[in-house]
């Protein structure tokens, strides 16, 4: 009897070991899982697009010899002092509180050396980042932590944050372990509490109010500063149109791959749309209003390489923003800290408990011993290198497509590898002229 073949153990595709582990964790703890980062699920993404390049029907530019420009203007619609960046890759908003002071300094250093901007977050403006950032975007968030007219005026642009891709419709979260004395003072909160900031702005509701709010911010800053409106990837066509109607100079659309310092895993994984689905809708809204390139579009969420930059721009964005990738460039999740990740019950490249403030790399922490490990000068150099590489990669692709400026990339330079990506991006399946959803098919 014992020699009979046995049916091998078979795992459920529905109740996978990971699903079961989460059920057990929930049953034992009574609370949902909180973590940092963006979605970890597989999604249609830029990897599902390819550039066609040039051959006989298109004429390429010579690599290293013929110029392929990369600069971008932001805020040309109404602002008296629009921003001019050397590269179309910006640093997304990340709060002091979520990140350490030295990490914010490194972002400023790296962005400045690479000729781009960095952005504050839900904790107000720190001297570290203002002092080290040539171009700093100041976020105007529902919580208004640290908000004041002096910082508004010393910012180079203002970003009204309506939502973010990791949690469209959700507010901020910073748990007690990271509310240090300095963070508590900046946010005017008791030390050590779990801070859950609002998901709606306290003094405006809807696009008609937003228009007046933007006008107030322009008045306070004497119409100098470009005003961005940032939305999570929820309904990008309508949100972009309403942001334009409200008077935005720049619209920022953040897909669900965009990271957060902390929120519920269920929120990160189940709310929002991938950035690939968002860009064409946002671009169409701008085109329908006759505002494409007049109101600039920044997109973010899962941008990792120059190829991603080139694809986002080819779909019609003016610039991209990176957050998670910038943290990895600084040293987040580096395998050199593997022993310490193991002690935290995780491993390098999977560590996402940023809310706990025990980051071995010293980036997502307020613990002086941990952030003392992080060298902001070295971190800044690493970020600068990474931004330069992304730019070179995007230029390489653009030249191969015969473009003398990254902004000359266009959807016609792309094809898709999957039906899903083709439908979302609005480009044909490779080797065909079929764009799913177009012309009744």
């Amino acid at each position, binding site marked *: 009897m014992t020699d009979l073949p046995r049916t091998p153990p078979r795992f459920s595709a529905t109740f996978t070991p990971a699903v079961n582990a989460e059920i057990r964790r929930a049953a034992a703890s009574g609370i949902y899982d909180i973590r940092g980062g963006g979605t970890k699920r597989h999604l249609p993404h830029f990897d599902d697009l390819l550039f066609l390049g040039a051959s006989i029907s298109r004429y390429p530019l010579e690599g290293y010899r013929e110029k392929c420009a990369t600069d971008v203007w932001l805020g040309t619609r109404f602002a008296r002092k629009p921003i001019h960046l050397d590269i179309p890759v910006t640093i997304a908003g990340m709060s002091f509180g979520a990140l350490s002071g030295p990490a914010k300094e490194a972002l400023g250093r790296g962005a400045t050396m690479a000729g781009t901007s960095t952005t504050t977050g839900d904790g107000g403006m720190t001297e570290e980042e203002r002092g080290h950032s040539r171009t700093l975007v100041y976020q105007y968030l529902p919580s208004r932590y640290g908000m004041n007219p002096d910082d508004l005026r010393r910012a180079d642009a203002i970003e009204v944050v309506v939502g973010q891709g990791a949690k469209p419709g959700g507010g901020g979260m910073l748990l007690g372990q990271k509310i240090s004395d300095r963070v508590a003072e900046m946010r005017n909160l008791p030390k050590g509490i779990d801070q859950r900031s609002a998901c709606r702005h*306290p003094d405006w509701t809807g696009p008609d109010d937003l228009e*007046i709010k933007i006008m*107030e911010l322009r*008045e306070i800053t004497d119409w100098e500063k470009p005003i961005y409106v940032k939305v999570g990837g929820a309904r990008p066509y309508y949100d972009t149109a309403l942001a334009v109607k409200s008077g935005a100079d720049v619209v920022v659309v953040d897909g669900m791959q965009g990271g957060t310092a902390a929120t519920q895993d269920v929120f990160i994984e189940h709310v929002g749309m991938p950035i690939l689905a968002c860009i064409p809708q946002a671009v169409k809204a701008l085109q329908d209003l006759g505002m494409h390139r007049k109101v600039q579009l920044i997109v973010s969420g899962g941008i990792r390489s120059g190829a991603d930059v080139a694809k986002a721009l080819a779909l019609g964005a003016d610039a991209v923003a990176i957050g998670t990738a910038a943290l990895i460039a600084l040293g987040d999740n580096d395998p050199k800290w593997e022993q310490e990740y193991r002690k935290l019950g995780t491993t390098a490249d999977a560590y996402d408990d940023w809310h706990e403030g025990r980051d071995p790399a010293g980036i997502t922490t307020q613990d002086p011993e941990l952030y003392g490990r992080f060298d902001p000068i070295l971190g800044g150099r690493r970020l600068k290198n990474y931004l330069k590489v992304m730019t070179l990669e995007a230029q390489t692709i653009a030249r191969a497509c015969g473009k003398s400026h990254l902004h000359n990339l266009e959807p016609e330079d792309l094809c898709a590898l999957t039906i899903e990506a083709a439908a979302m991006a609005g480009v044909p399946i490779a080797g065909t002229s079929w764009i799913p959803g177009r012309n009744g098919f």
Partner: protein
Amino acid sequence: MQTFDLGAEGLRALNAALHALKGQTNMTSWEVVNPRGAHAIAAGVDAPVDITVRGSTGYYCAGMNKLATIRVKGSAGPGVAENMMSGTVVIEGDASQYAGATGRGGLLVIKGNASSRCAISMKGIDIVVHGSVGHMSAFMAQSGNLVVLGDAGEALGDSLYEARLFVRGRVTSLGADCIEKEMRAEHFAALEDLLRRGEADAKARPEEFRRYGSARKLYTFNIDNASSY
């Protein structure tokens, strides 16, 4: 006295003139006529000057005010004195929603009633309302004082932090984590000072008020409190 005709010269010219006042100036007295409910009147002022608006204002009058004393001889639209840093703003009439939202300092006085969400997310400002306040007032209020001589609507002080709320009249209901607290000697003293500065000392006495504050049960998330949210 500088008299500025908003109807004739426009908002941008007004705010540009007010923003040009840096530090000490002898142009300390301003009068704005024909406001006609315009938005963002005297927003972003940063000088110790007196500004009187002769009429009612739209959204965000005196937004982010620093140092100035701004008096509205009429009613104010939504978000009056939002994120005020310092100085004094006095509304002779009523105020719409979000009065004093996220204010970080200074004093806001509303001689009439204030609508919903008065003092929302306040961060250090003092607000004295001679009349009543609407629902969800002092929502997520972080610090500062809200004094209401009349009644308060539903869900007063929902999810508040360390702000102190003083209400003389009836409170329709308290929001999550907001409880009545004992009035101690320091509270009577603080309230007396607030009533005096709020031009309300002839209308009410400190002993007529009740104090409300945070039970601090929601400061650290506990699943057993989930039904409170």
